[in-house]
């Protein structure tokens, strides 16, 4: 079978680019140094070599648009968020600080906090429920006036 026929068959099978990797960069023909067209009748053996460089052809030199680079920047954020959401639950012993010392669990700290177990307190420290109804109404009116003044400002 002739080489040109084989190339045609490869094209029919949908592998023209894979068979002749310059196909997508040229129109299927190459030019020699004098500009004469050379018809290809064998595979183009110019492939991306292990320690090689891409063949200079100009196709890879056009800069990406700002939209393309911006889209990628946004996607990086998305990928990172997804990674956080998919992170497995941490099990095992307590966390350690970088110096190897053990991090103190929060509940131990909470035991040392003085918790007010009595009635709620007003900002001035007086306990709610410790005022008469009259004093309480006056207090509420004062607080509403303060709030109004703050909003007007």
């Amino acid at each position, binding site marked *: *079978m002739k*080489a040109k026929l*084989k*190339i045609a*068959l*490869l094209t029919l*099978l*949908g*592998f023209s*680019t*894979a*068979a002749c*990797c310059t196909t*997508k960069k040229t129109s299927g023909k190459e030019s*020699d*140094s004098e500009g004469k067209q050379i018809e290809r*009748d*064998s*595979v183009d*053996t*110019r*492939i*991306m*070599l*292990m*320690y*090689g*460089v*891409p*063949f*200079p*052809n*100009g*196709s*890879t*030199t*056009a*800069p*990406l648009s700002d939209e*393309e*680079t*911006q*889209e*990628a*920047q946004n*996607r*990086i954020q998305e*990928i*990172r968020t997804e*990674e956080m959401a998919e992170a497995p639950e941490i099990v095992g012993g307590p966390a350690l600080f970088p110096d190897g010392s053990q991090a103190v669990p929060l509940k131990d700290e909470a035991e040392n906090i003085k918790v007010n177990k009595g009635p709620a307190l007003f900002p001035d420290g007086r306990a709610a429920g410790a005022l008469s109804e009259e004093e309480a109404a006056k207090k509420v009116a004062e607080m509403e006036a303060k709030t109004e003044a703050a909003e007007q400002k």
Partner: protein
Amino acid sequence: MKGKKIGLRKYVALKLFNSLYDKAIEKHELRTLFWECTLRCNLACRHCGSDCRTDIAEKDMPLADFLRVLDEEITPNIDPSRVLIIFSGGEVLVRPDLEEAGREVTRRGYMWGMVTNGMALTRERLYSLVNAGLRSISISFDGFENIHNHIRGNRLSFERARTAIRNIIDIEGLTYDVITCVTPQLLPRLEEWKEFLISEGIRSWRIFSIFPAGRASKDGSLHLDAEQFRTLMEFVRHTRREGRIELNYACEGFLGGYEAEVRDHFYMCNAGVSVASIRVNGDISGCTSVRANYTQGNIYRDRFWNVWQHRFEKFRNREWTRCGECKDCRVWDLCRGGGMHLRDDNGELMYCHYNMLK
């Protein structure tokens, strides 16, 4: 996850392609010439296939010796405009006469390119090289800062490479690509790394994975296992279909059902078929990634063109690779024993990509 099988349509295409490849072997037109101009390097990367060092016994090849071979042996026999010369190392930027070499090969009508780690590629040096005719450049960028610097063994290497890439992208008409060595550390973050590269404005990206040669053979933590390798292939396939960045897996080995889906071309090893190299000591061989001793001659003893035309038998007829793991392999005729760089000094296959994907 199972590997992708070769469908009938692709199988027929691979068979057709193989017969065309035979013709390419028969013609063995020289299209790419590596000049390993130095083995010195300003880094000591963990994955280095050539195991080069900062201070080595092997001296750089004098430019005049290389030019003599070009003038007397190569240029009279080929059309220089169809041959790409690649300056290779070591790290080529340690050579102060790189611009002179570039100007000389450009003057003779050749295109030239180079591969670099970017450490010493300042804006001034880049512009100077472009002025000397540099047409194509590949730069290594192996992952996020901690990964890249760990592999490269230098805390400045990521930032230097990043700056160099930004300068390269700014030069209109300079062909480039960024090369990433995918390790188990990078693989889980590869999607994020892709977005990072695009956000940096990078259009062309090449990926490879470690094969056990040089310094890389000693560090098992860099190697992908079968499952990770299949994940990588799926990533490359998906990214190519997505079309936001031009991505190719390197020419490393035959990939079975992934052929034509993870790189622009079907698998073929062009070492000794259309690719030759002149090593720092004058040895003539195929691709510079072939580290085992398949030397075919030496420019200080032999005539390069004579060697290219009449030797390279081991490269052009791979029947000898039908041994060991390959002996009864049913895809040998599509793969021909894998890339020459995957063979050791005894001809044994060190790594089979196809078997990894089974």
